[in-house]
C-alpha cells in the first residue's frame, strides 16, 4: 500500500529525512517512532503530497507521490491528522466535518451518514451542533481524527493521535483506530507514545532521519536484545549458576535477585535442557519465563546511542 524508496528531504541544505526505505502493507497499522526532529512529520507531509521530496520517491496505493498526475489523486485517497487539530473554532463539529467531506467530494447523503457514524463512534454526536470553541482538547482531537476519516480513505496518516489526551480519550481513540484496522484500512502513525504504538501497531520503524530499525515490536526486542530465559528458584545456590554456565549453548549467564538469567538463541529447544540439568543438580524450580523487553528498551538502545 505504501512503498518508500530512498526518500529524502533537506531544508536549507540540512537533511530532515535521508534515504528512507520501508514498505507498509494494506490493512497494516504502522508506527513511526523517533525523537523530535527525527523527520517523522516531514515524512508524513511528503507521503500526503503536502511538500516535495528532494531525493527518492514513494508510492501510495501504486500512485507516485508529488507528481503532477498523481498528487491530487493521492490527496483524495488519504486522510491526514496533523500535529495540531486545526479546526474552525467558530463552526460546529458537524459543519467542520461537512466542509471537509464536501472538499473530498463525498455526496450529500453519504456525507450525512458518515458524519453521524464517526461522531457516534467518538461519543460526540450529542454535541455535534455546538461550536468547536466550546469543546475540550480531547474532543477537538477526536473531531480532527474524524475529519481524517470523513471521506472513507484507504490510507490514514496520524501525527501524534493521542498527544495531550486524558487516558479515557486516548482509549477511545485507540479503540477507534483498532476498529478502522478491522475494516482493512492502512494506518500510519507518528508517535512518541511507545506504549500506545506497541499496543496498536503491527510493525514499527524507529527513525532518526532514516529508518534505524523496522519490524514488529516483538521482533525488534528480540533482534536488539536477544532472547533471555529467566529461571526462578525456591532457593539459590551459586553452584546452580555454574551448572548453567557449563552448557555450551548458554551465554551471558548471570544471577540477579534470586533468579538465573541466560541468553539463548532458541529457548523453545534449550529451556527443557536447562530445567533437566538444574533439577539433576538438586535445584527446586518455581518458574521458567522469557524476559520481556519493552519497546522503550529498543527505542532507547537505538536512539539513546545513535541520537544526532
Amino acid at each position: 500500500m505504501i512503498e518508500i524508496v530512498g526518500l529524502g528531504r533537506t531544508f536549507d541544505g540540512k537533511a530532515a529525512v535521508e534515504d528512507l526505505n520501508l514498505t507498509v502493507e494494506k490493512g497494516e497499522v504502522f508506527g513511526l517512532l523517533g525523537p523530535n526532529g527525527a523527520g517523522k512529520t516531514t515524512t508524513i507531509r511528503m507521503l500526503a503530497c503536502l511538500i516535495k521530496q528532494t531525493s527518492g520517491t514513494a508510492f501510495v496505493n501504486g500512485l507516485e507521490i508529488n507528481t503532477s498526475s498523481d498528487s491530487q489523486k493521492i490527496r483524495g485517497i488519504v486522510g491526514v491528522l496533523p500535529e495540531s487539530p486545526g479546526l474552525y473554532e467558530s463552526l460546529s463539529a458537524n459543519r467542520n466535518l461537512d466542509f471537509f467531506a464536501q472538499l473530498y467530494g463525498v455526496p450529500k447523503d453519504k456525507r450525512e451518514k458518515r458524519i453521524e457514524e464517526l461522531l457516534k463512534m467518538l461519543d460526540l454526536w450529542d454535541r455535534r451542533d455546538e461550536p468547536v470553541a466550546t469543546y475540550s482538547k480531547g474532543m477537538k482531537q477526536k473531531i480532527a481524527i474524524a475529519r481524517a476519516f470523513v471521506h472513507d480513505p484507504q490510507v490514514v496518516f496520524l501525527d501524534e493521535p493521542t498527544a495531550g489526551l486524558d487516558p479515557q480519550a486516548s482509549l477511545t481513540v485507540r479503540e477507534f483506530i483498532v476498529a478502522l484496522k478491522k475494516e482493512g484500512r492502512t494506518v500510519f502513525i507518528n508517535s512518541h507514545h511507545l506504549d500506545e504504538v506497541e499496543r496498536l501497531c503491527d510493525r514499527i520503524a524507529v527513525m532518526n532521519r532514516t529508518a534505524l530499525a523496522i519490524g514488529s515490536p516483538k521482533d525488534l526486542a528480540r533482534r536488539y536484545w536477544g532472547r533471555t530465559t529467566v529461571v526462578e528458584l525456591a532457593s539459590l545456590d551459586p553452584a546452580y549458576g555454574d551448572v548453567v554456565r557449563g552448557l555450551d549453548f548458554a551465554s551471558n549467564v548471570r544471577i540477579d535477585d534470586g533468579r538465573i538469567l541466560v541468553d539463548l538463541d532458541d529457548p523453545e529447544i534449550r529451556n527443557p535442557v536447562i530445567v533437566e540439568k538444574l533439577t539433576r543438580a538438586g535445584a527446586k524450580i518455581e518458574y521458567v519465563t522469557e524476559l520481556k523487553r519493552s519497546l522503550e528498551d529498543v527505542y532507547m538502545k537505538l536512539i539513546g546511542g545513535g541520537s544526532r
Partner: protein
Amino acid sequence: MRIDRAVIVAKKDLSEFRKNRYIMMTIVMMPLISSVILPIVYVVPINQLSRQSEADLDLRFNTTYSLENATLMDATILDARIEHVNITNCVIRNSIVENCTILNSNFNESRIAYSSVKNSMLERCYLVNLTLDVGNTVRSSQYAGGSHELDQLKTLMFNVLLILLIMIPVTIPTVTASYSFVGEKVNKSLEPLLATPTTDLELLAGKSGSIFALSMGATWLSFVVAVVLVDVLTEPSLGYYPLPNTYWIVGILLLAPGMCLMSILANVIISSRVNDVRVSQQIGGVLILPVLLFFFFSLAGVLSTALLPMLVFSLGVLVVDAGIVLLSLRVFNREEILVNWK
C-alpha cells in the same frame, strides 16, 4: 480549476465571517459611515452653496447709452448696456452686460449674462449663464442658470465622496483577509485544508472570492444608498439629480473592484510573513495610501476630477493587480505555506 471546490471554500469562510463579531462590525459600520453619514454631512455645504446663490439682490439699471460689437480697454463704464464687446481692464458699474468676453475687469451692481469672464472681480452682480473660470472673485452675487465655478466645486465634492466610498473595498478585505489567511495560519487549520484534493488555485480563489464578494457587496450597496441619499437631499436645491455621474460609474465598476483585489492579494503576501491578525491588518492598512493620495491630489487640484484621471488611475490599479496576482500565486502554494511561511 474546479469552481465548485472554490465555492465550498468561499461558503465556509463566509460562515466563519458571520460568526466573527469584529468582522461583522466592520462590514456594517464602514458602509454605514461612508454611505449614510458622509453623504448627509456632504449635503449641508452643497445645499449651502446653492442657497447662497439664491440671495435676493435689488439691482437698479439706468442705462443711458449702449455699446455693441466694440473693444473696451482700461475704461470706466457707468449706466450702460453692453453687448458683444471684448472688455479688458475695465471698471463697470450699474450696467447690463450680455454676450461679452471679459478679462481682468471689475464689475459692481451689474447684470452679466451669457458671457465668458476671466480673472475678474464681480461684486453684487446678477449672473446669468456665465462661463466663469477659477481666477474670478465673486462676492454677494446671485447666480441664475449655470455657474461653471460652482458646478466645478460641487462636482469636486461629489467625486471626493466617491473616493471615500472606495475606501470600503480596501478596508473590509484588510480585516477579513487578515482573519481568513493569517487567522487560519495561526489556528493551524491550513494544513488539513492543504491535505485535501483541492488545488492551490482553488483554495486561493475560494478564500479570495468570499472576501471579494463580501467587500464588493457592501461597496455596491453603499454606493446605491449614497447615490439615492445624495440625490434625494440635493435635488430640491440643485434642481437635478447629480449622481451617478460617469466619474462615479467608472470608480465603482473599475477602481473599487481593482482596489478590493489589491487589498485581498496583498494580504495573502503579508500573511506569509506575519503571525498576528492585527499586524496583518496594520500592514494591510497601508493600501489605503494610494486612494488617499488620489483623494488629496483631487482635492488640491493636482488631479482634476474629470473622467480621464479616474480612468488612468483605475487602469493603473488593475495593472498592479495583475502583478500581485502572480506574486500571490507564487506565495500561496502548499510547499511555501508549510515550509517557508513564518
